[in-house]
């Protein structure tokens, strides 16, 4: 016996088709490999302003601001290769186990793909991390994703710069 589909199911079915079409269209139009330059530039500015807020909050240990910027599923790989969650990172600031002796970060490069922004840069800050001072420059990759209309910091990895190529250390020596 074939059951007659209820209007609710029909509406749901139409919604699924509509959302599939929207997703496909978004895939075709939204995440192009060569995005529009003017849009990119606006996104870069937005991300830079969030980076500035984040940098300021890190120096002050302002976890309220950091909570707003960090994505709930943030994955943070520090320069020691340790993997930290949003909670781990917030606790470090709250407890004072991460403290900035000096702060300098820049040489930013952006790659924007629709709702994803990949930011690379170099950090020359001097950090007191769990009682150990780190003065070695670090190159980092941060990923921001626009979630519910807001750019959130969802991934970060830092790597100590051991390569002595001048271009690598130029930013920190200036």
């Amino acid at each position, binding site marked *: 016996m074939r059951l007659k589909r209820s209007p609710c199911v029909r509406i749901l079915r139409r919604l699924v088709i509509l959302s599939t079409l929207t997703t496909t269209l978004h895939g075709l139009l939204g995440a192009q490999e060569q995005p529009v330059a003017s849009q990119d530039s606006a996104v870069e500015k937005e991300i830079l302003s969030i980076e500035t807020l984040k940098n300021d909050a890190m120096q002050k240990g302002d976890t309220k601001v950091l909570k707003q910027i960090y994505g709930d599923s943030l994955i943070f790989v520090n320069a020691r290769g340790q993997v930290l969650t949003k909670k781990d990172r917030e606790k470090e600031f709250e407890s004072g186990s991460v403290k900035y002796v000096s702060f300098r970060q820049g040489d930013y490069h952006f790659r924007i793909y629709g*709702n994803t922004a990949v930011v690379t840069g170099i950090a020359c800050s001097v950090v007191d991390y769990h009682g150990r001072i780190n003065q070695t420059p670090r190159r980092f990759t941060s990923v921001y994703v626009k979630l519910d209309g807001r750019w959130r910091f969802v991934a970060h990895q830092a790597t100590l710069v051991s390569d002595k190529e001048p271009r690598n250390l130029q930013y920190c020596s200036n």
Partner: protein
Amino acid sequence: MSVGRLLLVIVLIAFACPRIVKAQSDASSQASIQQEVLKVEAERDEAMQKADMAVLNRIYADNVVIVNTRGLSLTKAQRLGDFQSGDLKFLSFDQGDYSFHIYGDNVILNGRANSVVQFHGKVNRIPRKFTLTYIKLNGEWRLVAQNETLIDQPQ
């Protein structure tokens, strides 16, 4: 059951049903994305060991940014050049311990590599943590960012 209770049940089902359906659909979609990216990652691993430029060229996005364990930022051309010239060779290959974070067409993949690598004549045996960012571009998963960090490296 009274008519009031029956109506309440109907309202609750109508309210919860779309959410349950959506949650199931999201979970299934996430699992399917994870499988797709794992497949691409397996292809890349094999291509890196064989220095298969055609496959690597297809997987690396044109604007990929690679931060290697020495903290050097490399472009696609530089990375492919390293494989082509033999400056980057895998003496053994061991990679895994993957964790995924999926945001629509963006996948953040973390893992650990224990491979022994020869890079410009220097052999690296130290295990590394890595973060890869895959994005679906024109229907294909492409690697747009890679960052590697030695685990417990001396400072």
